[in-house]
């Protein structure tokens, strides 16, 4: 039986699954009485992270599971994503979204996804036990 403060979802590595994931996240956040703003921050981060996995983590065309876990712990909302794709640490970069741009030429189009995650989540971490990528995002309540 699933504990009320903990939710799990498994999807396939197919972009069409992103909509199901978002619906699941919003329903879980509603049950956890998470604010709408935080739920939308989480949805934005999850979309960027999982889309990256689906698009870039696999070297074959086989179906792969992507597992997600959402829980409330110590005044934080913690979202974890696990996949069996190639090793990739999305946070191995200093990029943030704190800069602004004066001209259109200053903007490098691309890389916004990871930067958005780093800006919206309070903590981001990556590890790779047992040949699995695990991304963990924490949002302070």
């Amino acid at each position, binding site marked *: 039986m699933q504990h009320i403060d903990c939710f799990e979802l498994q999807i396939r590595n197919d972009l069409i699954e992103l909509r199901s994931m978002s619906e699941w996240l919003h329903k879980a956040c509603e049950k956890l009485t998470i604010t709408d703003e935080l739920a939308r921050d989480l949805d934005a981060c999850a979309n960027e992270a999982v889309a990256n996995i689906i698009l870039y983590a696999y070297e074959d065309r086989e179906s792969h599971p992507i597992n997600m876990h959402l829980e409330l712990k110590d005044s934080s909302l913690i979202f974890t994503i696990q996949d069996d794709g190639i090793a990739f640490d999305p946070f191995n970069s200093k990029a943030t*979204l704190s800069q602004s741009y004066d001209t259109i030429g200053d903007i490098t189009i691309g890389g916004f996804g990871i930067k*958005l995650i780093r800006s919206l989540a309070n903590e981001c971490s990556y590890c790779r036990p047992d040949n699995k990528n695990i991304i963990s995002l924490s949002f302070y309540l």
Partner: protein
Amino acid sequence: MEINCESLEGDIYKINLKGRMDIIGNADIDIKFSGMTALPRMFFIVDLSEVNFIASIGIRTLLLSTKAIHNRGGKIVILNPDIHVKKILLMAGIDMVLPIIDTLELAIAAMH
């Protein structure tokens, strides 16, 4: 996603987007958006009031057209985005090159 374009005074075009601008929704409108913002048109107001989510792929679509429009001396602004969409756009830091404006009157004034 849904997209349509209406012609306003002074050769200004208002592009109305509706729905979720994630990787799936963006695929619905990306090519149409590029076409609507192509030559010979120069001045654009992109109404995001009915877009309830934007992912980086959506920001990319907006910026690619913005670059092309700026390069030919045109103008483009964002009109009245949803509060969370606005938060994402501001975090991305693109408001200096793609102004975010709250009312249609001010958006039209920004074209001149």
